[in-house]
């Protein structure tokens, strides 16, 4: 089923190192200098309202607002025209990332459309030391914040020294920048050059900077944010805190300057940003909509030198119930929407109404690997259960007892294929055995294994008995409000397993309880989507037991790894070898070496068969108004590639 996956037009060439595409990046940047001459007779190079403001003297001319070498964006279809407002929907609570995905994706680096390479963004180029511990970023001279103040090395140094390392604001610095327990030393080389020196090798930095969690360096404007810190404004703080109604400096800073993923990031219209649109009506408690308008200082242009974004503004309506988002979509009141409505079950309804709503569907390639991973808790607190779940043959029996094709037909509308875990088939690291073993439907084999394991007696309900006389039973936790499809899958699983004499309870629980139970590994078993289909190195916790919130088949072992043996339980040798390989893979920036190390880890994971699943995570969809152009027909769907942001909404435009 190759058509499910994004065609990777530039598959990872195992012989190209990071340095290889760095030189390509430099080439692109060089081209951009040519493409942005500050021409006098270029009347259509900015939006009409901005041109008016310039005429009226309220705004400096375009040439002074753009950096010397703005980022040149090649439009997806064609060069666009200015105007229009994009209508999009948010959910009422905790949906700040819905804004981030559309607007706030301006890190030092960015992803390409295929999610395979890192491209220059705020940084126009960079240099990496031989051991990948020292990075030098060259920013764009003359670049401005959205309030017209210059952006430069000072802002980044400020962010690291006065914000991230400041215990008033961050009790502990963000994990993504911490190597060997320390933040990097960030020094200003000149106004537009900064150097990051890490305490050890950091092979993944450029990719991490392209993800949302790597946005800190471009988040805080020193000239604005410094007034909320004791170091810069000790005298004025009490008054500011009183006015904001908060008690601590940390609260004040967060309320005014936000953080990567908190609602307050979009709650303060005064805060300068580097985004294509800036907040007009903020995202605050009780808001029924959020509006954003064009940033007149946005630092990107199209191939004709016209300043982006094309679209005047964005209007996010806030729906308490996602069903009203669906209504808005099918009645044509949304210009682009995939968030909250893109379940496969919704697709027929949305597709059938495309003509009435005057929209088209685009495909989003699922970055996940497995739609439903079944995690049997191998570090169960009950010794008998632990022994049952740790038995690889038991897990194999359960896996082959599943009629995956039936589940795919019923729940996933026939849109997937039997699958376990691991990189998706189109990924260069695809691992046949890890992904396909034990996916055949073979109840006879399952019965045979279970008989052999000593569960050959059955009770009146035809459920197998354990040697101690108890029925072979366990509960599977699932959050119905989050993943209703998983409940459906479990109901089918319950029947499939009952047919081989294994009894399960579908334990539908509330989400906070779900997390509390798994964090302290109190669950028998649980289900969750399996990540790592398109980003196998940053989300490999189904194969490698390192993530105390992710590796839910053995949280105790992951805890042991994450705390260097202080907490949790010591894992078996196979797991220790895998985490060692993983550490090595993270430290290198050589893609080829990384691939080899990960293959060894995947071999071990395939051998030990810790978790099993149902089917490859199916591709989802989004809708775009027929009037809205330059929206790619396919894009990844991931958090690291926070769709649709990296498809550059700033180059979307409306046809009249």
């Amino acid at each position, binding site marked *: 089923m190759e058509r499910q996956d994004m065609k990777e037009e530039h598959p990872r060439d195992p012989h190209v190192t990071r340095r290889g595409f760095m030189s390509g990046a430099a080439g692109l940047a060089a081209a951009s200098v040519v493409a942005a001459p500050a021409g006098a007779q270029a009347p259509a190079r900015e939006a009409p309202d901005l041109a008016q403001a310039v005429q009226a003297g309220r705004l400096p001319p375009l040439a002074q607002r753009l950096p010397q070498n703005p980022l040149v964006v090649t439009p997806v279809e064609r060069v666009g025209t200015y105007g229009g407002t994009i209508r999009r929907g948010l959910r009422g609570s905790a949906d700040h990332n819905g804004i981030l995905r559309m607007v706030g994706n301006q890190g030092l680096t960015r992803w390409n459309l295929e999610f395979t390479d890192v491209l220059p963004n705020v940084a126009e180029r960079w240099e990496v030391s031989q051991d990948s511990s020292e990075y030098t970023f060259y920013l764009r001279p003359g670049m401005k914040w959205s309030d017209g103040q210059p952006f430069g090395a000072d802002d980044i140094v400020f962010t690291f020294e006065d914000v991230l390392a400041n215990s008033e604001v961050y009790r502990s610095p963000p994990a993504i920048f911490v190597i060997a327990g320390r933040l990097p030393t960030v020094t200003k080389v000149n106004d537009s050059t900064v150097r990051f020196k890490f305490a050890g090798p950091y092979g993944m930095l450029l990719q991490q900077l392209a993800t949302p969690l790597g946005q800190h360096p471009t988040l805080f404007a020193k000239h604005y944010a410094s007034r909320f810190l004791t170091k810069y404004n000790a005298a004025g703080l009490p008054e500011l805190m009183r006015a904001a109604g908060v008690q601590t400096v940390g609260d004040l800073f967060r309320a005014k300057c936000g953080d990567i993923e908190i609602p307050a990031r979009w709650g303060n219209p005064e805060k300068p940003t580097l985004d294509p649109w800036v907040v007009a009506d903020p995202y605050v408690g009780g808001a029924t909509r959020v509006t954003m308008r064009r940033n007149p200082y946005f630092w990107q242009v199209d191939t004709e030198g016209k300043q982006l974004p094309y679209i005047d503004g964005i209007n996010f309506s806030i729906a308490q119930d996602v*069903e009203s988002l*669906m*209504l808005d979509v*099918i009645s044509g009141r949304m210009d682009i929407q995939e968030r909250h409505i893109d379940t*496969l*079950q*919704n*697709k*027929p*309804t949305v*597709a*059938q*109404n495309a003509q009435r709503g005057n929209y088209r569907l685009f495909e989003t390639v699922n970055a996940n690997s497995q739609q439903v991973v079944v995690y049997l808790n191998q570090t169960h607190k009950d010794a008998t259960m632990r022994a049952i779940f740790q038995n690889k043959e038991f897990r194999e029996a359960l896996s082959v007892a599943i009629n995956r094709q*039936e589940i795919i*037909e*019923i*729940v996933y*509308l*026939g*849109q997937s294929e039997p699958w376990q875990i691991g990189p998706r088939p189109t990924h260069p690291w695809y691992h046949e055995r890890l992904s396909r073993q034990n996916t055949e439907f073979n109840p006879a084999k399952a019965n045979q294994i279970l008989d052999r394991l000593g569960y050959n007696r059955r009770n009146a309900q035809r459920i197998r008995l354990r040697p101690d006389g108890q029925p072979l039973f366990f*509960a599977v936790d699932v959050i*119905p*409000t989050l993943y209703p499809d998983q*409940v*459906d899958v479990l*109901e*089918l699983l*319950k*029947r499939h397993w009952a047919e081989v004499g294994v009894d399960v309870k*579908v*334990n*539908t*629980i*509330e989400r*906070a*309880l779900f997390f509390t*139970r798994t964090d302290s590994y109190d669950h028998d078993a649980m289900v969750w989507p399996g990540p790592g289909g398109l980003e196998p190195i940053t989300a490999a916790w189904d194969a490698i037991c390192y993530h105390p919130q992710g590796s839910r088949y053995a949280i105790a072992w992951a805890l042991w790894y994450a705390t260097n043996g202080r907490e949790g339980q010591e894992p078996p040798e196979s797991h220790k070898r895998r985490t060692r390989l993983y550490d090595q893979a993270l430290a290198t920036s050589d893609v080829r070496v990384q691939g080899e190390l990960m293959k060894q880890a995947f071999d071990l994971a395939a051998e030990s068969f810790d978790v099993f699943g149902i089917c490859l995570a199916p591709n989802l969809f989004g809708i775009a108004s027929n009037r809205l152009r330059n929206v790619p027909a396919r894009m990844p769907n991931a958090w690291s590639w926070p769709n649709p942001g990296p498809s550059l909404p700033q180059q979307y435009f409306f046809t009249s």
Partner: protein
Amino acid sequence: MSDTAAAAPAVDRNAARFAAASQWRLMWWSFRRHKLAMIGLFVTLAIYIVALAPDFFSVSDPIRQNARSVYHPPQIGLLHFFDEGSFRPHVYGMTLRRDPVTLAPTFVPDPSRKIYLGLFVQGYEYNLLGLFPVETHLFGPVDPRQNIYLFGADRLGRDVWSRIMAGAQISMSIGLVGVFMSLLIGIVLGGISGYYGGGIDFAIQRTIEFILALPQIPIWLALAAALPQNWPATYTYFMITVILSLVGWAQLARVVRGRFLSLRTEDFVVAARLDGASEMRIIFRQMLPSFMSHIVASVTLAIPAMILAETALSFLGLGLQPPVVSWGVLLREAQNVRSIATAPWLFAPGAAVVIAVLALNFLGDGLRDAADPYQK
């Protein structure tokens, strides 16, 4: 004094009958005249019979999924009664096709495949009243390997008709206990409060105010999360109903107190007191019957309110959860644009709720009127 009462023939024989009849007999006579109430009574009885043995009325196993009948449309309008001149009800088999682009399912009738229906047919096995295994169903396809979908099928190909039958059991039974518990506490405490007044009244009133001041939603939320996880879902919901009833008594107690306060000085109460009747006797024999009708009205409205509360809880994701089948759960599953637009038959459980609530309300309404002591 009502029109019909006035119109009743006042023949001597009848008068004698009225004089000799017990209070309950009088109530029954009065009740029979209320046409809607009689209908309500029969419908309620019918629903409770279904709730006792839902599987007997089902056509196929309500939790059995079927890949070939996902979103199968209802066949109730497609019934053919005559086959080659004789009376043999049947439907045509339907074949599922999926649109490759929109993924929308379409069903094409296949006239060569006739599915005959019969009464008392053999189907899936179940336990009648939880006691003995049976395979007989009231009606269904003559060939147990075939399926019919009177009210269509849901997203997993499960028969909606059978699921409504199964849902009746939980929805109709659960909540009854809650209502009766709140009734009991409410009358006792409200009565004491209203009759004695003074210090006791003050203390009970403050408690009631306090309990009323606690909003229900957070209590539901907190309790739903705090109940032990290893309980079966029905048991959990039963506990929530019981706790809700402990809150619900407060409203009833306040109403009862209001009536007691005004009745306290009525002549017949004063007379009873002067007669030396005990306090309990005065409350329960004299005062309580005088506003029985009001209590019956409250209870009548409380039972369907419990049924509706169950659907509301399910809507918020706090009540029963699938795979448990209740009307609330079924409605929750239908509560989306997808169902309205492409599978409106999934709202059939809503009709079941409406019918049950209507029937119970009319029943209680008739009871209320019949219990009115001044009617005759």
